[in-house]
């Protein structure tokens, strides 16, 4: 990192200045993790670049360009774009329900010309932006005022509901977790937090009864006791645990994972890619990768803490937490700690929208870093 005098940062940064401000160490880390992903996609395809690794590399390259471009754009611009982006995402979410085609039994995709979009992925970023924008204008006291508090709650609840009825339980959980975390960071009073936890304790059984689909319930039930029906619904979890466990200390070696190569693993290129990694590289490789993830997360926290604007702080923490929730839910899911909810592993799993949205998110994080000295008044609405 290049240390710059405090005063210099106060000037308007040139494009070249910004290039130097970009945290290239973090980008290197992200690239290393993505490369681990390419290697695994190559491995689970039986040692072939196609059909997954080659496309994933192209997406990463595009994502890399997006990251740098997003990082160079002033965060005040992003602040101005927050509400429009949220509105567009909301419209797309509604659109996917109205006219989206059915993929994997759920309405998740929307086709825009040559692009196939998952509006729920867009929404995660948009929601973080919009909440950061809204909360930027709120003092600690404001956040907890009943009427003002309802606005962010509605901003979270409406998209969460739309994603839930797609149905996509995993993304719903992440949207809610992202939003609630931002409210918490913005200083929401414990007087709200404590009753909310109580409400969740009541809502979960209710949701179980009325909102969850049968397949979602079955996933939860088989999670609770996967060995009862090892060849039926519990197959995924059982086989994933066997794959991870059989990796042992040092793993079976690159391209030697029998569980994935012989198709014992389900969706090995997407949600269960982490499993294949653990099988082939063992405890040593898996903890090393986990440490890399941790370093990325703490970079994000450090960026948030060093930003001078509340918008920048909340945006950076929102992106970082979003990244963290993905890792937590995916890893815990394939290791049999929580039910299978269908969340990909960021940077590793095969998937276009996920890769682009993750890279876009890192772009925003980097933008906060580059513009960390920018001060934005509480009542500012950006610069557009």
């Amino acid at each position, binding site marked *: 990192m290049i240390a710059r005098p405090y005063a210099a940062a106060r000037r308007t940064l040139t494009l070249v200045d910004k290039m130097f401000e970009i945290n290239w160490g973090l980008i290197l880390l992200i690239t290393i993790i993505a490369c681990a992903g390419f290697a695994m996609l190559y491995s689970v395809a039986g040692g072939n670049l196609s059909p997954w690794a080659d496309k994933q590399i192209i997406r990463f390259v595009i994502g890399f360009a997006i990251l740098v471009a997003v990082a160079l754009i002033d965060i005040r611009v992003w602040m101005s774009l927050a509400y429009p982006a949220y509105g567009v995402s909301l419209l797309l979410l509604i659109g996917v329900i109205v006219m989206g085609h059915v993929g994997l039994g759920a309405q998740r995709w929307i086709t825009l010309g040559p692009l196939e979009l998952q509006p729920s992925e867009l929404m995660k970023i948009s929601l973080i932006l919009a909440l950061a924008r809204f909360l930027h204008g709120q003092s600690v006291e404001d956040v907890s005022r009943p009427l003002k508090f309802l606005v962010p709650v509605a901003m979270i609840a409406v998209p969460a509901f739309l994603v839930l009825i797609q149905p996509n339980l995993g993304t719903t959980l992440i949207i809610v977790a992202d939003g609630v975390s931002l409210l918490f960071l913005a200083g929401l009073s414990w007087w709200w937090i404590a009753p909310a936890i109580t409400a969740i304790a009541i809502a979960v059984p209710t949701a179980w009864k009325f909102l969850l689909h049968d397949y979602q319930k079955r996933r939860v039930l088989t999670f609770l006791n996967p060995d009862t029906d090892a060849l039926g619904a519990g197959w995924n979890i059982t086989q994933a645990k*066997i794959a991870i466990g*059989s990796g042992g200390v040092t793993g079976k070696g690159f391209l030697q994972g029998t569980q994935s190569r012989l198709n014992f693993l389900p969706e090995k290129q997407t949600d269960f890619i982490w499993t294949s990694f653990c099988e082939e590289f063992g405890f040593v490789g898996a903890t090393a990768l986990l440490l890399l993830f941790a370093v990325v997360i703490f970079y994000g*926290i450090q960026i948030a803490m060093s930003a001078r604007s*509340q918008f920048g702080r909340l945006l950076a923490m929102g992106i970082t937490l979003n990244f963290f929730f993905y890792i937590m839910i995916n890893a815990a899911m394939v290791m049999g700690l929580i039910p299978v909810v269908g969340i990909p592993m960021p940077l590793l799993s095969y998937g276009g929208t996920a890769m682009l949205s993750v890279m876009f998110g890192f772009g925003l994080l980097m933008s906060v870093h580059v513009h960390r000295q920018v001060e934005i008044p509480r009542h500012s609405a950006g610069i557009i």
Partner: protein
Amino acid sequence: MPLFDRKDKSRYATFTRRTLMMSGGMTAVLAALGGRLYQLQIRDGAQYMTQAEDNRVNQRLIAPPRGRILDRFGVELANNRRNYRVLLVSEQATNGAEAALDTIGKIIQLSDAQKKRVLHDLAANKKFVPVPVAENLTWDEFARINLHLPYLPGVQPDIGETRSYPFGSELSHLLGYVAPVSPDDKKAGDDDPLLDLPGFRMGKRGIEKQFDEDVRGTAGASRVEVNAYGRVIRELSRDPGVAGKDVYLSIDRELQNFVDQRLGNESAACVIMDAQTGDLLALSSTPGFDPNLFNVGITPDQWHALTSDDHNPLLNKALGGVYPPGSTFKPAVALAAVDAGLSNFQVFCTGSITLGNHEFHCYKKDGHGHVDLHRGIQVSCDVFFYETARQLGIDKIEAAARKLGLGSASGIEIPGERSGFIPSSAWKLATYGIPWQLGETLNTGIGQGYVLVTPLQLCTQVARIASGKAVSPRIAHVVGNALQPRPVADLLPFSDAAFQAVRSGMNAVTNEPGGTAYAWRIAEPGFEMAGKTGTAQVRRISQEEHLAGVKKNDTLPWKLRDHALFIGFAPVANPRYALSIIVEHGANVEHTHVQMARDILLFAQKRDPLKLPTGYPVNAAQAPAKPGARA
């Protein structure tokens, strides 16, 4: 309004505090994930490795080739031939096993019983085990299956091996047969994994059963890597197993064939052995059955035909049939008599003797007049043997008979041997609580009453008389590469004079005018046989019938006619071949059974298999004596 105020400071402080709280939370979660990795990969790693290996590897048993059964010259009596068959793997049959069977049924003949059997086998085995659907297909049927294979998921054409008996029924009782394993076979404590292999055949009778463990071999195994759908990806290792051992019998297939031909359609048994060693050269029981039927799968009609035949084709009469020996028992009585010092004993036969109020008849109504031991055997005088038996007493007769191998199983290496029976006074008292009666001794003297023998025992008896040695019948000569242990044939505890007297009497039967079989002697010099005829009643002859004249056999229904027996040895001068023959309900004036014996003994001597070079493995080593083997 100032750009920044106290409120901003307070919320920055809150943000920092709460961010640190969340960082702590995230650290804890990441540590928990690491802990879970430790649990799965290090603490339970070995267990999951085993499970992954179980997932990946299927062990498939390989049936080793079954050992052959050969005769003394290396002629294959039982071998293996190619078996075109169709297997079904249930987990690969995407439309279900029943649909697959229906489709196969449209291509080749498949009965409902077969389908039922296949579904049962599929249910009894793991999903990846191939189960035979149809076997012994013609090349044409096999080719049709192969042609339709793309539409038959889970169906595997396979070329295996199956047992074949080139000589069909001729050796059926000797060799036995192989058939599918039954639940009882497994209960018998045989834990060979081969028994669980679908379609496996094990020995069920005869030599196939006796030497099953030797000829079966040891299971091989193929370890294959399979994917989640059970498809074989590659073979990891292959252990071909150990092929079954070949069993060389002392049988001469040519002689066996001649005997079989000569017995024809009679319900009969004939045993020929080396009189000096006990080696069996032929052991025939007619009618036989086709042992291939049991291997391929016998139909209910075929089974019914075998079980309802009054000639009893499923019984090995040579060692599983017991008969009263009739006059063929007389040489044993004669031997006991000479041994007891009765060599000059003479009797005047008037056609019957009276004991108490019961009359004992000689078969010759007018009597034989003066009869000594030599003439007693030659003309088979019943009165002479009544009197001899009376002089000897039952227990001396019993002792002599047992020394000649009667009354107990010989230990032949073919399952199903019966021991026959020789009565004694102690047995009678113990069993019925009544003392032995003299009349019973008289009946025993002519081989009637309680006495029961098998044709194999009769042959052993005549071999012992001919050689003077305690030979026992043996059939397996070499198993694998090991020479089978053979009991040493000690000299029998009878005097030479006794043997000479009996042999000379038996010589007179065939070779001196007046002998009961003189008309059917071997006239060719150097090939003469000695022997003893016998007839065993299967019905009671009443006192009235004796007075009116005993009914001739050819006037009676087949089932009521007497059994015809003959024992003999040849050549007389230097006995090598001992023979016994019994034709059930075959007594007639032409003595066709003696003619058979004559032809067989002449054929045996002319072919002289004992002098021909054997086909046993040249480097066969003497096997260590099995515990319990008789010396």
